[in-house]
C-alpha cells in the first residue's frame, strides 16, 4: 500500500511536469509548424494559389489604422503581384533593439527598414541579417534600378553586394548655416558672404551686442564643425581628405583644418556666442521653440527653408557651408532590406519594386485610404482629412518619395527640383567603401570610450584645444587608434585597387 502510494505520487508529479511541458511545448510548436507548412505550401503551389503574406517591419510610432490600410494595400497587391502585406511598426527609440532581437532569434520577417542611423545597415548586412539582392534586383527589380540614381545602389554596396533598396530621395548631403530671419532683418545683416565658420564672426558679434537674450550660435552636443573630410564611420575620428587622390586615412584631430575649427569654436565660446552648456545640451528644441537663437548648422535638402519655417513658425533662411556631396550616410538614409530568413524573397522584391514605382501603392502606404485619410485636391496635390491622425506615417522611410502626392503649399515642380539637386551631387571620397571593424572590435570599443570623453567638449568649443587637443590625441592612440587606422588603410587600399581608382 505504502509503496503503491509513493509510486503514484511520484508519477503524478512527474506527469504534472510533463503535462506542463508538453502543453507549453505543443502550443509553441504548433504555431511554428502551421506557419512553416503554410509557407511551404504557398511557395510550392505557385502564383494561382493562396497569396503570399509579406511581413514588413518598419520604423515609426505605431499608427492605429495600420491594419486597416494594409488590408486595402493587400487588396491591391494581391491582384498586382499575388501577395498580401502585414506591416508592423516599431517606435523610433525601440527599433534598434527590437530588430536586433528579432533578427538574432531568426524571427519570421520578409521586409525591414534599415538605414545608417537605425538598425545599422552595413553592420547588419555583415552579420547576415539581410539577403543579398543583386540577382533579385535584375530579375524583379527593374523598376527600382530604372528610377534610382545609380549612386544610390553603388554607394550602398557592402563588400561588393547590395543588401537593401534605398529610397529615392535627396541624394547629396550639404551642410548649411541656418539663420533666424527675424533677427537677421532686425540687425540688417546679410548672409551672402557667409560660408566658413570664421566668416560668421561679424554677424555673431552684432547679434551678441544688440540682442543679449539671443544665443548667437546655437550649438548642442551633436555639433561637429564642418571640415572637408569624409569620415570613415560617423562621429569616429578617422577620415580621408575629400580631394586626396592617395586616399590616406588620418586622425581628424591631427588635421590643420580641425585644429583651426576648434580654435575658432573656442574663441566663440569665450566670446559668449555659444551656449555655456553646449557640450551637454541634448538638443536645441527649446530655443527653436522660443526663437531665441540666431544661427546654427543643419543639413539641407531642396525646399528645406520652407519646411523649417513652417515647422518653427517663424522664417528661416540658409546659406551653404559646403558643397553638395554624396556620402555613404546619404545613400543609406532610408532603405528597405529583405530578411535573410525570408521564405518569399522573390515576392518581397516584387513588392519593393511596386512600392518604389507605383504611385497608387506608394501613396496608399504613405497617406492611407483615399477618401478616409486624405483626399486628392488638384492633380498631384492632396489634403489630409481628420482621420489622418490615425495614419500619420514618416514619408521618407517608406520608399521612393518622388512619386508621393504633393502637400498643400508645395511647389508644383518639387520633385523635378529634387532630381536636379541629386544630379548635381558629386561623390565623396569614400562613397561605396564600408569599413569592416570585425578584426579590431576591441580597439573600437576602447577608442569609442576614449573619444566620447572629449568629443563634445572640443567640438562645441567648450574647452581650449591648445591644451586638450594633444591630450585627446594621446588618449586615442593609447586606446589603439593606430591599429584601427592601419587595418582601415589596408581595407581601403584593397577597395581602391578593386575600383580602379
Amino acid at each position, binding site marked *: 500500500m505504502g509503496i503503491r502510494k509513493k509510486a503514484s505520487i511520484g508519477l503524478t508529479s512527474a506527469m504534472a511536469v510533463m503535462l506542463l511541458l508538453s502543453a507549453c511545448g505543443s502550443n*509553441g*510548436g504548433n504555431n511554428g509548424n502551421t506557419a512553416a507548412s503554410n509557407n511551404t505550401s504557398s511557395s510550392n503551389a505557385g502564383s494561382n494559389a493562396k497569396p503570399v503574406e509579406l511581413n514588413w517591419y518598419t520604423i515609426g510610432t505605431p499608427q492605429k489604422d495600420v491594419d486597416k490600410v494594409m488590408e486595402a494595400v493587400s487588396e491591391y497587391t494581391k491582384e498586382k503581384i499575388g501577395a498580401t502585406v502585414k506591416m*508592423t511598426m516599431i517606435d523610433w527609440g*525601440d527599433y534598434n533593439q527590437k530588430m536586433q532581437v528579432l533578427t538574432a532569434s531568426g524571427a519570421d520577417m520578409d521586409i525591414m527598414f534599415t538605414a545608417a542611423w537605425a538598425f545599422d545597415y552595413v553592420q547588419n548586412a555583415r552579420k547576415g541579417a539581410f539577403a543579398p539582392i543583386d540577382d533579385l534586383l535584375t530579375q524583379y527589380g527593374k523598376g527600382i534600378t530604372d528610377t534610382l540614381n545609380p549612386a544610390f545602389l553603388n554607394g550602398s554596396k557592402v563588400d561588393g553586394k547590395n543588401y537593401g533598396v534605398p529610397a529615392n530621395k535627396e541624394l547629396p548631403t550639404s551642410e548649411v548655416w541656418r539663420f533666424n530671419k527675424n533677427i537677421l532683418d532686425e540687425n540688417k545683416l546679410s548672409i551672402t558672404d557667409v560660408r566658413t565658420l570664421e566668416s560668421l564672426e561679424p554677424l555673431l558679434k552684432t547679434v551678441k551686442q544688440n540682442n543679449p537674450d539671443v544665443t548667437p550660435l546655437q550649438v548642442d552636443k551633436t555639433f561637429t564643425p564642418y571640415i572637408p573630410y569624409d569620415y570613415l564611420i560617423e562621429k569616429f575620428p578617422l577620415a580621408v581628405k575629400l580631394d586626396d587622390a592617395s586616399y590616406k586615412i588620418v586622425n581628424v584631430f591631427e588635421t590643420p583644418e580641425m585644429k583651426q575649427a576648434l580654435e575658432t569654436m573656442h574663441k566663440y565660446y569665450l566670446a559668449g556666442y555659444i551656449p555655456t552648456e553646449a557640450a551637454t545640451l541634448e538638443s536645441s*528644441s527649446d530655443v527653436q*521653440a*522660443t526663437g531665441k537663437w540666431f544661427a546654427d548648422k543643419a543639413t539641407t535638402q531642396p525646399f528645406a527653408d520652407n519646411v523649417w519655417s513652417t*515647422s518653427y513658425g517663424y522664417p528661416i533662411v540658409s546659406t551653404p557651408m559646403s558643397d553638395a556631396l554624396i556620402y555613404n550616410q546619404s545613400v543609406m538614409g532610408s532603405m528597405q532590406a529583405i530578411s535573410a530568413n525570408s521564405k518569399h524573397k522573390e515576392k518581397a522584391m516584387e513588392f519593393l519594386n511596386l512600392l518604389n514605382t507605383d504611385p497608387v501603392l506608394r501613396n496608399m502606404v504613405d497617406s492611407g485610404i483615399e477618401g478616409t485619410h486624405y483626399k486628392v485636391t488638384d492633380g498631384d496635390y492632396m489634403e489630409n482629412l481628420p482621420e489622418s491622425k490615425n495614419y500619420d506615417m514618416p514619408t521618407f522611410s517608406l520608399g521612393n518619395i518622388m512619386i508621393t502626392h504633393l502637400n498643400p503649399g508645395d511647389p508644383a515642380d518639387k520633385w523635378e527640383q529634387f532630381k536636379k539637386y541629386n544630379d548635381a551631387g558629386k561623390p565623396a571620397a569614400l562613397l561605396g567603401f564600408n569599413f569592416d571593424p570585425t578584426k579590431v572590435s576591441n580597439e573600437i570599443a576602447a577608442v569609442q570610450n576614449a573619444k566620447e570623453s572629449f568629443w563634445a567638449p572640443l567640438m562645441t568649443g567648450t574647452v581650449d584645444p591648445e591644451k586638450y587637443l594633444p591630450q585627446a590625441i594621446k588618449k586615442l592612440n593609447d586606446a589603439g587608434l593606430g591599429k584601427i587606422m592601419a587595418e582601415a588603410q589596408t581595407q581601403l587600399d584593397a577597395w581602391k585597387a578593386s575600383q580602379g581608382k
Partner: protein
Amino acid sequence: MASLRKTKDFHRLTPAWNVIFNLIAGLFALACVFPFLLVMVISFTDEKTLALDGYSLFPKKWSTDAYSYLFKAGDQLLRSYGVTILVTVVGTVISLIFISLFAYAISRKGFKYRKFFSFLAFFTMLFNGGLVPTYIVTTKLLGLGNSLWALILPLAVNAFYIMIMRTFFSTMIPDAIIESGKIDGAGEFGIFFRLIVPLALPGLATIALFNVLGYWNDWFNALLYIENPDLVPLQSMLMRIENSMQFILANSNNASLGTSVLQSMPQDTSRMAMVVLATGPIVLAYPFFQRYFVQGLTVGAVKE
C-alpha cells in the same frame, strides 16, 4: 484591551526624540515629493513658457494642453490602463502564490532539499541567458508572443523576493507554530494557509507591493513581446515616447528626422503629463498596502 494600551505606551519615544524622528522622516519625504510636485506643475505649464523659463513651481502661464493632447488618443489611453491593471492584478496574485510557496518550503529546516532549491533560485539572480535566448524561449517554445501572458509570466518569479520571503518565514515564524499545527493533524498546505500566512502578512504585503510596483513599472517586456497596440501597457507607452524622443534628438542632424518627426513628438509637458497619469493611480493605491506595515503592531498584538 488594557494590555494593548499598555503595549503601546512602553513603545513610545520621548517627545523630544519623537520630534527629531518626525523631522528626519518629514524632510526626507519632502525631498522625495518635491520633484513629483514639479512634474505635476510642469504638466500644467504652457509649453512656450517652459521653453523660455525652464522648470518652475510657479509658471507664468498655465495650460491643460498636455492633457488634451493625451486624451486625444482617447481609447488607447483607457485600454492601456486596462492592460496595466489586469496584468498587475493577475501577475501579483500568481507571483505571490509561486514565491511564497517556494520561499516557505526552503525556509523549513526539515525540508531535505532546501539547500538545493535555495541555490537553484539564487543562481538565477546572477546568471541569465541574455535577451535573445529568453526571447526565443518565451515566443517560440512557450508561444507567448503578443499575449498578456508575455507581460505576466516573465515577471512571475523573482529570486530576490524569494530570498526576502524566506528570511521572513524563518525569522518571524516560530517552529512551535508549525509543530502545533502538525499535532493538530493539519497537512503541510493546511499549516501554510491557515497558520503561516496570517502571521507572515507584513512580509507578504511587502512582496505583494514589490510585485505590484514591478508589474506596474514594467515596460521592457512589452517592448520585447508586444506588437499589438491594444495590448500595450501604460508605462510602456510612456517609455516608448521617452526612448523615441531620445533617439530622435540623438539623430537630430538627420534632416528628415530632425524636422518632420521631431515636430510630431509629444512635448515636454505631455511627457510629464504621461508620468502623472502613469503614476497617479498606483500612488493612490499605496495606502492600501500601508495598512499592513503601520498596523503591523496590531498583528503583533494578535500574535500574543
